[in-house]
């Protein structure tokens, strides 16, 4: 998963871009076709259509209760869709019981069998395939090695740490060599450091085995790190499906922009648009402001449309003096500074009382900073950094 947006760093050597979703004719390994799931009157998943391709690391992201787990459980076969179809390699799998699907799941709670040893847990699925003892043993050993748990083969789950349990759960789910591995918040129980380490381990394992991974998470950073594509869900709907870079740079709605990372949203009206470098640059009139801004609009927008201007804090430049040539300029006072070690986020209060956040890397030590509380400051950004979001 080294190539995500499809941009290569070296001009001469073009690495093979992994982007099967761009190919309209490619057959996806999983396809949801208008899948709806209702629990009584409540609609948990609402008419979702989605294609996931072989060898992808697909992340389902979204706020709590938006239907991520339900979508995953339908794919695993533990829930039946109320409407719509799920296809695996082109075959409708609604009639296939969960124990016959080429899919394995790593459970959020790990669901390790407490009465079995680590090795027996990993071998559990292999034994069901009526493999010979020696084959089961060989494969179990291979899996133990993959997750670096050889030394713990004879332990029971309750004798393991959280991180070790998580590895056993992963090894168990991978042992049967499934075509698709489902992971429901696999790293939820780990601390930040171990979590990051495990994310990279997961990516390595995924790359090594070439299995299609579908991971559920509500941690947007995790999704950005591991995924080839992210499907962002909201209230049972897919709000946007795109690569991490795309979903960050080109959110298609206020919800997406707000959910992924930090964003400043300014309400206003779209004005005239002009073409610039092959993209529409639109004049934006903020509500109650005298100054106009310029912003991108990837989908194009009609003049006079009520919309939001979204600009990420790290794209906003903060300075104590007025910049020479800035198309997009705001004036205010520093209200608050949030120090996060490598970064500082300045909360700047504008004349109308609203707050705009600007983020700067802390290249200098704290004491040498030239901006401090209540200083008058100027905020500016490039037109390409701001995007207009239809409401």
């Amino acid at each position, binding site marked *: 998963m080294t190539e995500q947006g499809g941009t290569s760093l070296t001009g001469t050597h073009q690495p093979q871009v992994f982007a099967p979703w761009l190919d309209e004719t490619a057959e996806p390994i999983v396809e949801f076709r208008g899948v709806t799931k209702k629990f009584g009157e409540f609609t948990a998943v609402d008419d979702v259509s989605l294609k996931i391709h072989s060898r992808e690391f697909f992340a389902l992201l979204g706020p709590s209760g938006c239907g991520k787990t339900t979508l995953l459980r339908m794919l*695993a076969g*533990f829930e039946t869709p109320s409407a719509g179809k799920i296809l695996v390699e082109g075959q409708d799998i609604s009639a296939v*019981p*969960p*124990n016959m699907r080429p*899919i*394995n*799941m790593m*459970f*959020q*709670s790990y*669901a*390790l*069998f*407490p*009465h079995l040893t680590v090795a027996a847990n990993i071998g*559990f*699925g292999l034994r*069901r*395939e009526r493999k010979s003892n020696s084959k089961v043993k060989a494969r179990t050993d291979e899996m133990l090695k993959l997750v670096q748990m050889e030394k713990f083969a004879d332990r029971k789950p*309750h004798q393991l740490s959280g991180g070790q349990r998580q590895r056993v759960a992963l090894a*168990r*789910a991978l042992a*049967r060599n499934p075509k698709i591995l489902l992971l429901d918040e696999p790293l939820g129980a780990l601390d930040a450091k171990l979590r990051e380490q495990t994310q990279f381990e997961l990516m390595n394992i995924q790359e090594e085995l070439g299995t299609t991974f579908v991971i559920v998470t509500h941690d947007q950073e995790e999704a950005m790190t591991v995924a080839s594509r992210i499907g962002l869900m909201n209230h049972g709907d897919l709000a946007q499906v795109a690569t991490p870079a795309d979903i960050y740079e080109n959110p298609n709605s206020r919800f997406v922009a707000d959910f992924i990372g930090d964003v400043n949203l300014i309400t206003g009206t779209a004005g005239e648009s002009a073409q610039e470098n092959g993209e529409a640059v639109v004049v934006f009139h903020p509500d109650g402001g005298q100054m106009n801004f310029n912003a991108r609009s990837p989908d194009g927008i009609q003049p006079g449309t009520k919309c939001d201007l979204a600009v990420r804090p790290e794209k906003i430049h903060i300075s104590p003096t007025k910049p020479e040539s800035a198309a997009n300029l705001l004036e205010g006072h520093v209200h608050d500074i949030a120090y996060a070690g490598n970064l500082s986020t300045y909360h700047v209060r504008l004349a109308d009382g609203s707050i705009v956040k600007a983020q700067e890397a802390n290249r200098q030590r704290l004491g040498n900073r030239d901006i401090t509380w209540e200083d008058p400051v100027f905020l500016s950004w490039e037109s390409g950094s701001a995007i207009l979001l239809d409401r």
Partner: protein
Amino acid sequence: MNFRRALIIGLPYFWLLVFFLAPFLIVLKISLSDTAIAQPPYTPILDLSAGWQGIKDFVGGLDLESFTWLLQDSLYINAFLSSLKIAFISTFLTFLVGFPIAYGMARAPQGIRPLLVMAIILPFWTSFLIRVYAWIGILRTEGLLNQFLLWTGLISEPLQVMNTNIAVYIGIVYSYLPFMVLPIYSTLEKMDDSLLEAAIDLGCSRLKAFWLITLPLAAPGVIAGCFLVFIPAMGEFVIPDLLGGSSTLMMGKTLWIEFFSNRDWPVASAVAIILLLTLVVPIVLFQRQLERQQEASR
């Protein structure tokens, strides 16, 4: 302060001493005595007023005669073996009946589970004796069971259930069912549903998942339930007496007859001691199991 600590630590021991050890020693002493037509009906009796000589006479009068008597008369050995057999079979039957009930309860919707537990405990609110008497009304030759079966035409002659071992099994299964159901229910209820889903996900059918996951995880509850039924069933007296009639031989009943009909207190006490010793083994095993369970659930 020290006195209070001693009191707190000493109180349970004191309790054990008064309510277990002292009666036990009295029964043990009686079992080593001989019968006498007297009040109380055994000798020797400790006479402390005779001083040292009294104690010597007392100890000299004790012997193992009652125990050798138990071994010589096959009645007692048969009663013991029969008790063992009835306790085993009825424990197994209680398990067969109790497990599905516990399983059904644990699978029931969360909201109605307390109600179901209540329903299991509810019979305890009426006297045990009355409930056993009620079974006489059901099982006897002109009883409800036979009337019903005759009415349906399944049988043409009334069945002889009353006064057989079958009636004893029915009585024990009925009476001790809650002791089997509740521990099994509590282990099944704690079980994480995702374990079964994981097993199915890894290729098990539902039946196989039950066999490989549910049953092993319910084992501590099953073992606890079996002990809780087996131990009292072994010494059961009321049920074999009321439902089993004269043909049913059990330790508890033998003990009662020796004590009240024959007024042979030493032999009755010896029977009691033997019963206690045979039950110590399963009780110790049960305790060990409980400890292991607590260890595992930490």
